[in-house]
Structures are given as C-alpha cells and as structure tokens.
C-alpha cells in the first residue's frame, strides 16, 4: 500500500484538526483548517485511505512544504 504525504501549501497556523489517527477518510475530506493571512485555509486529502500519521496540532505554525499527515492509500 502506498503512503501519501499531505504537504502544506501555505504557511500558517493550525486552527483545527478534523481527523484522528487511523481514521478512514475519503478523497476530498477536509483534514485540517489553517489560518493564514487571516483566511481559513482548508487542507483536503488527495486520496482515500487510512490516516497513519498526524504531524501537527492546533496552534502550531506550519511552513510551506511541511508534511501535515501521512495517508495510507486504499484503492477504489
């Protein structure tokens, strides 16, 4: 099974973590909400699968390019 890294595309602060470890998620689900430039930025999963690792918590500053989570892809 392929593990997909969810990469942060916009530097900002995590205001909400919407998933937990081992959660079953569908492509397009919102995993995190970041605040950056006073906007809410939703981070969605590019694939369906299991959340294997969450690297951030609420309040963390996350730079562009950081790995937010790792998802084990479950194919169709």
């Amino acid at each position, binding site marked *: 099974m392929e593990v997909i890294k969810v990469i942060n*595309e*916009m*530097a900002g602060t995590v205001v909400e973590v919407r998933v937990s470890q081992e959660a079953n998620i569908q492509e397009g689900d919102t995993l995190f909400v970041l605040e*950056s*430039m*006073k*906007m*809410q*930025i*939703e981070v969605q999963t590019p694939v369906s699968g299991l959340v294997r690792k969450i690297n951030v918590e609420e309040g963390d500053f996350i*730079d*562009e*390019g950081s790995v937010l989570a790792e998802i084990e892809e479950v194919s169709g």
Partner: protein
Amino acid sequence: MEREEKVLKELERIKKGGPQRGHEKQRAEGKLFVRDRLKLFLDDGEPYTEFGRFARSGDPEFAADGIVTGTGKIDGRLVFFAANDYTVKAGSIGRYHGQKFILSQIAAIRARKPMVYLVDSSGARIDETGGYHCERSIGLFYYHSIMSGFVPQIGVLYGTCFAGTAYTPVFCDVLIMMKDAAMAIASPRMVKMVIGEDVTPQALGGAQMHASVSGSCDFVVDTEEQAAEIVKKLVGFLPDNSDCLPPEAEAREPKTDPAKIDDIIPPDANRPYNVRKLIEAFVDADSFLEIKAKYAQELVVGFARLGGKVIGIVANQPSVKGGAIFPESSDKGAGFIWLCDAYNIPLVYLCDTPGFMAGSAVERGGILRRGRNFIFATSCATVPRICVVVRKAYGAGIYAMSGPAYDPDITLALPSAELAVMGPEAAINAVFFNKLQAIEDKEERAKVEKDLRDAYREGYNIFKLAGEMIVDDLIPPRDLRKECIRYFEAYKDKHVDRPKRRHATIVGG
C-alpha cells in the same frame, strides 16, 4: 497535359509524407499523420494555401522536408501555420524545413495574421543545419520574439521536444500539450551526461509538470481532437493582430442567474468560495476559457465573452490559499494581463484577496520583485479596465488588481467589499498590541479587542467608502454584468497617452 499530370502525380506522392516506417512509428506513438491532424483544425479539412511542397522533393524519403507550411481557415478566419511531419525523420529540422518554418513566420508578420504551430519534432538535423547552431537559417526564435504581441502565436506540442526546439512551444502566447508530450532544455540522456541526474522525460518536462509546476503550459489534453477544439476557441477570442479588435459573437445569457451572485459570496469574510461560480453568473454561458488552470490556482485567469464581446478575467480564488497572491500567481497575472493588453482585450478584475502572501518562503521566491511585475502589467495596460471589489481588498493586493489608484476606468464595489490596508485582526494587532497586552483580565482583553476590530471595520464600511468616492460606485451584485457591459461599451474607443520612452525597464511584466 503531360506536364500538368507530372505535377499532380508528384503532389500526390508528397501528400503521403514520409516512408512506411515513419508512419508506423507515428502510429505506434498514438499520434495522427500531420495531414490528418490538420483536418481537425482547418475548414474543408485542408490547407487554404501551402508553399514549399516540393522542398527536397528529389529525395523520396523527405516529402516537403518534414514540415507542412501555409495558411488555413479556422471557422472562416485565416491563420498561418507550420506543422511538423513526424513521418519524415521524426519531424526533425533540416535545411529546407527550417527555411520553411521561418518563411511562414515572416509571411504571418507581413500578412498580419495569427500563427499556429503544430509541434512534433525531435529537434535539429545537426548535419544539415550547418552544425554551428547560429546560422541565419535557424533564427526561428528571433522571429518568435518579433511576432510576440503583434500577431497571436498558438502552439500545440504533440511529442517530446528537447533542447532548442523546445523554445517554439514556450514562445507561444498559449501552449497546449498532449498528456504524453514533454519538453525540456536538455533531454534525459543529456541531463544524465552533464549533471549525472537520472530522470524520466515525464518527470523532467512532462505536460503535467509544466501545467502545474513550471507554469510553461496552459492546457493539457488527452486527445488531438481536444487540442484542436482549444485552438479553435483561442482563435475565436484573439484578433488578427495588435491593430485589430477581437472577434465578436452573439451574446448569451449567463449559465447562472446574476441574481444569485449575492448568495455565492459568503457573509463571513474569512470563508472561502469558488470564484468560478461567480464568473459563471457574470459571463456569457459556456464562454469562459480558463488559462493555466492548474498553475498558481489562487489566481484564476482566462478569456470569456460578456454580451458577446471578448474580455479577459483576472480573479482571486478564495478557495485556494485564501486568494492570497504568491510569486507564481504574480507571474500568472502579469503574463495574462500583458497578453490581453497586447491584443486589445478589455480586462475585468474580480478582487477578493487578503493581499500578497507574507513570510520567508515567499520572500525567497521574490514576492516583491514578481509582485511588482503584476502591479506593473496592470498599471501599464491601456485596454479598458474594470476593477470589481468583490470582497477583500487588503494591502498591496488591490494595486495589482487594478484598484482605484491604478487607473481603472471604473471601480465598482459589491456590498460585501472591504477595502483596507489590512484586515481588522492584523490591523488591531499592529496598532494596539501593547495596549491589549497591558489588559490583564483575559475576558476584558477579548472584549476590548473585539470593540476595536468592530470600530476598525466600521471605518471601511463600504457605504462610507462609496460616500467618500474611494470607489466610483456601489452596485447591487445582480447588476454586475449589466454595469460591466455598459461601461465597456462606453470605453470601447478608450485612448490614453503615456510619456514617451523607449520601453519600461521591467521585463516579463
């Protein structure tokens, strides 16, 4: 009689292209023979005129020296074209091939007509082009440069294209790549040799990479039919040359009723929404053709029709990165504005941005310098420009988005508009930080902060700003389309004189 027969017979042979193995190679790669490809583009399925057909005709394997050049009609519009024939030596550029290419560019300049390049070439035939790579006969990029902004240049890339030939695609105003096509300054083999990197053609310069990462490709398509469709649409949007107006079409009502615009924009200024929905309720139905849709998606740009007339749209996209402007989106915006200004295409800016992105990553990416190019392109564009303040217009973002001080012909605000140096959270934090920190009671501090923010927000209440003529008018969202159509009609003969100079010192705006 006999003489005529001889010519006809020879033409028949030339039209068949290269040798059997060339056709087989092309078929194996899932690509069409150049003359079948041209059928997808041209009225009546064939060139209107064609020259240089007998180039290298003495050699049975070099029909037309591997390139079809001439004119054709696309939905009645005459364009010049150059299309490589992959069945002849993999479309490589030989002596007459190169000459035909350049002669068609010179012809397009003289005739003042658009040029379409159907690129399917493995590169130069080094032995034939002289081998010095700087003979006059291979100055095709010189002519690309001279044509830029004078006649539209549209390119489609069908195969892999490395080194010199990869400049033709990137010199085009708009580039379409087939999904398996690739282009790079050096081939994977050369890359391995000169720097030791192992890389596949797709990873190095594939269509997806260029569409989403480098920003060098505007469209990726699955089929040759789709490529032709996009070229036809583009020809429909672009004028013959920089002295002409873009072609008009019949007006159509928008896909979504403009009365819905007020519902599309969320009441909470921090909530994202998809600006394409707003565009759908603004332009003629099915007329929006987004350019570089996969690149720097926080800015949406593209051609559309408004009441039948061609416009260019520059819109912040709040659903991607909050609509903040990044170095990449600055390039994307600047390039599109410059393209529209070159070809007399009026611009509508839909502004909803928290501003230029902040932080060390974007500073290293040249946010100031590249953001400057965006502001420069807007400031220097002399086509009619309308600035619509949809929602947020914070900081220098509104300069790039043709705000009131950047000489738009009109600035229209929707009731959701918020024009300010920065948002209330950032502003209160910046101005009253010490005062707030001095309040020990947490609840009390939160209350004071909220009151300050509310007071700040009230300071840029849009009715107040309209009252002070900061914006030219405040309009009900449902009237946005109607108002823009009327303003563009009013400004269709717009003319501005600028101080005489050779040219600006900013390149790439």
